[in-house]
């Protein structure tokens, strides 16, 4: 079995790496041990895992002039193998990150439980570790669930391709993820790390041994995300069906393209900044150590040069799903399609020149404050274009309020709050007061959870019949949407106020007068957590027993709905021919694809 071989390969790799470094240490007369053998061991373990799980069988043999195995496995076993079908890989990503999302959600419950009362229940150290793990796992979900999951599954279908441009690279990107999870989940047992997902030095250079595993994990995750981005760009630029010009692509495809450009290029900076942390810890360099002339601020520059654009890796595909769903469920062409595309590209363009708005209080040179404030606020122009497109689309549309549409509308509301509160943080004067308070926490949860995760839910329900071939229960879906929307507001609205009143982030104790906001938020958080049980029950049960879905239950116009649910191995029986805009609703004679598909009645759960 592939996974067993992978685990074996990982064990061999780890032993090899550890022994190698230990031998070098012995030869140089140094004491054996420390972080270096663990680092090299983990890297080689990842390589061993990949080779064992299928990289050798399906690909690496070729590098040695041997014939690789070109078989594509069928049956349920294929979900546990190194396989190249983008639909299988999309599901692998989705299921993996739903599990990670659940784990990180449980950690959020622990955080809110600790903050229920002003007193410390958990202890500072444990709290910091819980908060850090919650942070990085959720960041991983936000980076990879939509792009790796829905992007992988839907983009080739939506552009009429048979698969991604580099199917084996796609499999490699996915199979890099389990080592990341394993390393992050091992970290708490080897000292943990308490520096949050941001891992600022000097703390990250001197803290517990778990930080080392964190660094290795994130560098591997970065590689996965770079290769995934590369693949998505090449797929979108090179694999489109005849007639699918760039301006006829569904808007979700554009958003994946834009986000992939960012992950392809900027992720290197996150990797580089963390590797420098590792070198400071392991190799005795002095990049971030002030005593040796280094500068902790350098880390923040490198880190935010990636991590600000990273929020667009998260939110752009969220925008894409939202606009997609809004157009189909308003039964109107997407309003200002070109404007939305320009908005996406404008966001990509600006994303690389605003990073220091995270550093107004960090001690960087003051002359940088005003330029970075101004540049950051410029982002509201392309973002405004996207919003304009959304509002123009639903304006006087015949809104079909099914589950995906409810989530998409929620995104508009949430992101409006997230966006407007962002202005206060981009503004130097107000940021001096709000920096590192719960106002920041509430703000980014409104953008990432309120924006992207709600959009992820919209996407999951929207493409659920396509992916699973079955229909979920609409009533439970709507319940999920409404419940999650309300609970989400109740969790995070009070936290804005707590932040304004000076409640710091990343603390496990706080002063008495802040208790009202926190207790309220915590109780709401438990309610928010509970809704996912309903959702999971609905989605899991329907996958096994739900009514069989037809090819096009939404009577939607784009290509993925012209093939069966789920689609056959090569996606389309015949290469589709695209003849017009993606959302030809209400335009007599207009069509996206030929032959024009005449939709039958809607799915069984109506």
């Amino acid at each position, binding site marked *: 079995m592939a996974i067993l071989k992978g685990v074996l390969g990982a064990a061999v790799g780890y032993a090899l790496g550890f022994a190698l470094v230990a031998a070098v240490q012995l030869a140089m007369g140094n004491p054996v041990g420390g972080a270096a053998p663990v680092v090299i061991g983990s890297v080689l373990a990842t390589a061993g895992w990949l080779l064992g799980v299928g990289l050798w069988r399906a690909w690496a043999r*070729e*590098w*040695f*002039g041997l014939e690789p195995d*070109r*078989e*594509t*496995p*069928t*049956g349920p*076993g294929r979900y546990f193998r190194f396989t*190249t*079908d983008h639909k299988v890989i999309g599901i692998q990503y989705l299921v993996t990150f739903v599990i990670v999302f659940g784990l990180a959600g449980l950690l959020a419950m622990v955080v809110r439980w600790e903050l229920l009362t002003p007193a410390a229940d958990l202890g500072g150290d444990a709290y910091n570790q819980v908060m850090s793990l919650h942070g990085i796992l959720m960041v991983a979900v936000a980076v990879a669930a939509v792009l790796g999951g829905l992007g992988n599954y839907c983009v080739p279908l939506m552009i009429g391709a*048979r*698969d991604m*441009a*580099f*199917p*084996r*690279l796609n499999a490699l990107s996915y199979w890099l993820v389990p080592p990341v999870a394993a390393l992050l989940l091992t970290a708490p047992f080897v000292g943990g790390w308490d520096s949050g997902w941001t891992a600022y030095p000097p703390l990250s250079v001197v803290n517990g041994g778990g930080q080392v595993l964190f660094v290795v994990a994130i560098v591997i995750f970065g590689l996965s995300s*770079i290769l995934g981005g*590369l*693949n998505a*760009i*090449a797929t979108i*630029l*090179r*694999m489109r069906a005849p007639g699918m010009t760039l301006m006829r692509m569904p808007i979700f495809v554009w958003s994946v393209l834009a986000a992939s450009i960012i992950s*392809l*290029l*900027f*992720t*290197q*900076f996150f*990797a*580089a*900044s963390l590797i*420098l942390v590792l*070198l400071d810890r392991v*190799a*005795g*360099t*002095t*990049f971030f150590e002030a005593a*040796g*002339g*280094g*500068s902790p601020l*350098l880390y923040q*520059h*490198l880190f935010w*040069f990636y991590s600000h654009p990273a929020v667009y890796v998260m939110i752009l595909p969220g925008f894409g799903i939202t606009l997609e769903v809004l157009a189909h469920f308003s039964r109107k062409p997407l309003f200002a399609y070109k404007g939305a595309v320009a908005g996406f590209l404008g966001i990509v363009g600006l994303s690389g020149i605003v990073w220091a708005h995270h550093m107004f209080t960090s001690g960087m040179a003051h002359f940088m404050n005003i330029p970075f404030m101004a540049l950051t606020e410029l982002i509201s122009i392309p973002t405004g274009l996207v919003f304009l497109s959304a509002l123009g689309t639903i304006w006087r549309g015949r809104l079909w309020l099914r589950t995906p549409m409810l989530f998409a509308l929620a995104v508009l509301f949430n992101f409006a709050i997230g966006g407007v509160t962002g202005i206060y943080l981009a503004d130097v004067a107000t940021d001096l007061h709000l920096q590192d308070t719960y106002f920041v926490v509430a703000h980014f949860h409104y953008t990432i959870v309120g924006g992207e995760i709600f959009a992820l839910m919209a996407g999951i329900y929207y493409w659920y019949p396509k992916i699973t071939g079955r229909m979920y229960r609409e009533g439970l879906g709507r319940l999920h949407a409404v419940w999650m929307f309300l609970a989400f507001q109740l969790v995070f609205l009070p936290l804005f106020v707590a932040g304004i009143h000076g409640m710091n982030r990343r603390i496990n104790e706080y002063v008495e007068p802040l208790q009202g906001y926190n207790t309220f938020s915590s109780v709401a958080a438990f309610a928010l957590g509970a809704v996912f049980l309903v959702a999971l029950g609905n989605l899991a049960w329907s996958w096994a027993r739900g009514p069989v879905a037809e090819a096009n239950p939404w009577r939607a116009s784009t290509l993925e709905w012209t093939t069966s649910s789920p689609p056959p*191995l*090569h996606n389309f029986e015949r*290469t589709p021919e695209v003849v017009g805009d993606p959302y030809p609703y209400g335009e007599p004679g207009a069509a996206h694809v030929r032959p024009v598909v005449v939709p039958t009645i809607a799915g069984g759960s109506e």
Partner: protein
Amino acid sequence: MAATTEHLRHEAESPAERLRTNRLGLWLFIASESFLFAALISARYYLLGTERSEHLNQPLGFLISLVLLTSSLFAYRAETAARFGDQRGFRRATATTIALGLLFMVGVVLEWREGLAFFPPSTLYGSAFFTLVGFHAFHVFTGIVALALLLWAGRDGRFGPENHWPVEGVIKYWHFVDVAWVFIFPTLYLVK
């Protein structure tokens, strides 16, 4: 159960189209890697400005740069030979490229031995120097491994006019690693 599939081979795509897709993929990868070197180079300037150590072995640095740049010439010959099906020329030029790459690595080792004495990693310049050279040398190393694999896989004469992408891809990567050094060398040795 397993169904043999053609979809790994992208039979919908002609070989010429596949070649263009592969090339795009490689260029994207190179763009991404450039950002990595940009990050490290900017860290050097951020920490030290244009300050550099007085103890650099300038002749050695110049020499290994020359070796690496010359290797690109032979790499180019290897690619051309493969494209025209000249097996002997391909093998000889590839082997020469590998040899020059190894020579460069030897130079790096010598450079490091001297450097450790004058500016160890615990100094600011040492941090920048060893990290940048180390990252680059790692790329050279991966390039050497890839070239060696080409030589090994191509021993049956499989690379020719119809099948030269593996050669072209590795050689382009090799050129990129050389070009990266063209930026790193002045950053460490020349600016002042």
